């Protein structure tokens, strides 16, 4: 208990850092994921290939490696002087977007054929079909997998802590290095992560209930 109370400011700092990192990367991954899924089912072959390459490459690369690319290679090539927080968001967002895109595409697969046919017979264009008819239904089916992806994103965000981003893992490292009881620090940090992941999965379960499709 001592460790938590004596260093409450540090813990709060790390907690807020993890929350911020997770929510910004989640937003990025969802936006990119929708784009990737749309590209994968689009009528333009170049976009389909691009999205497939994106998904295959990112799904099979360790996040730590992506962080290294983001921190050591990206600033030298394209964006000199970007903050480590932004780079971490980029790495996490891109990594998770591949999984989100895949989950959404599975969702698209589960939408009955007649839906798209009906949309087309009304004269809707491909973007209209996707935006108004198919993706809203696919998104609902994909809610459960996306929920577990967001939990995984929270867990992956810990890696940012070892690249000069303030988050719970960075605080664990700092407190362990300054001679606090390693086990106690671990338990408090673990409970903090437990709290975040629990809230996320409850949130998605609520959403699932709210948006369930009666099919």
């Amino acid at each position: 208990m001592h460790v938590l109370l004596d260093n409450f400011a540090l813990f709060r700092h790390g907690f807020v850092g993890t929350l911020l990192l997770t929510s910004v990367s989640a937003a990025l991954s969802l936006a990119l994921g929708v784009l990737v899924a749309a590209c994968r089912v689009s009528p333009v072959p170049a976009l389909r290939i691009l999205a497939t390459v994106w998904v295959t490459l990112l799904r099979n690369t360790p996040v730590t490696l992506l962080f290294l690319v983001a921190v050591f290679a990206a600033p030298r090539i394209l964006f000199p002087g970007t903050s480590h927080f932004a780079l971490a968001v980029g790495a996490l967002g891109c990594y998770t977007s591949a999984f989100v895109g895949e989950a959404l595409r599975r969702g698209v697969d589960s939408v009955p054929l007649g839906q798209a046919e009906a949309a087309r017979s009304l004269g809707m264009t491909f973007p209209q079909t996707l935006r108004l008819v198919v993706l809203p239904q696919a998104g609902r089916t994909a809610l459960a997998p996306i929920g577990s992806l967001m939990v995984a994103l929270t867990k992956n965000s810990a890696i940012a802590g070892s690249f000069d981003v303030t988050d719970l893992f960075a605080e664990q490292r700092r407190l362990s290095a300054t001679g606090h009881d390693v086990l106690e620090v671990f338990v408090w940090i673990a409970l903090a992560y437990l709290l975040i992941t629990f809230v996320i999965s409850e949130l998605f379960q609520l959403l699932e209930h709210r948006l369930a499709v009666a099919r």
Partner: protein
Amino acid sequence: MSAGALFDAPGPRTRRRRRIYALASTAAILALAALVALRLCGNGQFAAAVWDLVRDRGLRQRVGDGALAILRAFALAAAGSLALGALLAVGRLSEHRPVRWAATAVVEFFRSLPPLVLVFALYAGALPPSWAVVLGLTLYHGCVQAEVLRAGISAVPRGQAEAGYAVGLRKSRVMATVLVPQALRAVLPTAVSQLAVTLKDTSLGFVIAYGELLHAGRLAASNTVTPGGPPYLAVLVVIAAGYVAVCLALSALARWIERRGARGRG
């Protein structure tokens, strides 16, 4: 729904428009690639000296050692996590309430925290880095595998277990000879995909200076001086290619197992 149902078969005008889209998107992608290449060139990352590194004996030695370290950690963690997973899965299905609760608590706790936090705590608790990685990954992925296996065992039709009891088998025999063999078949693809995640997670050793692939590569790169600064990119590209290849092989294995299983059942 197949992707083809999302749009009509194109007429001549649409075909022309799509050709324009295709050209535009290809051009945009190529332009981006060219921009990256240009910047790389400007930084001297394409200089022969940078890529000469790949042929350097010392570097190859270190990267080879790093790859071996990863494979060793992966083999131990994979075996450990499967064993722990089986134990915990059976524990969660136990008829004794304390055992069930204990197994549930362990699984739910370790499953919902980042493996990195676990690995680091073990390392800070004075374990050598190699053991911290192996133990941390075993604990985390063991709990994930436990859930995978439990789902499989619960999915075996009830009649199977009942038939086992009817012919006079004991609980442990029913589990070992009736339920687990059938569950294993069903969950093998998922378990193998989870093993691919375990392999990817060995890279967490980087954070605690375990002499694995990424660490070796970074060290080698920062010890080399080229006109464009340390050749991080060259080393990262080579390592990434290795990881992607091995992970793709594992997921191909998972798909193959899934197909075989489907064939047997069909």
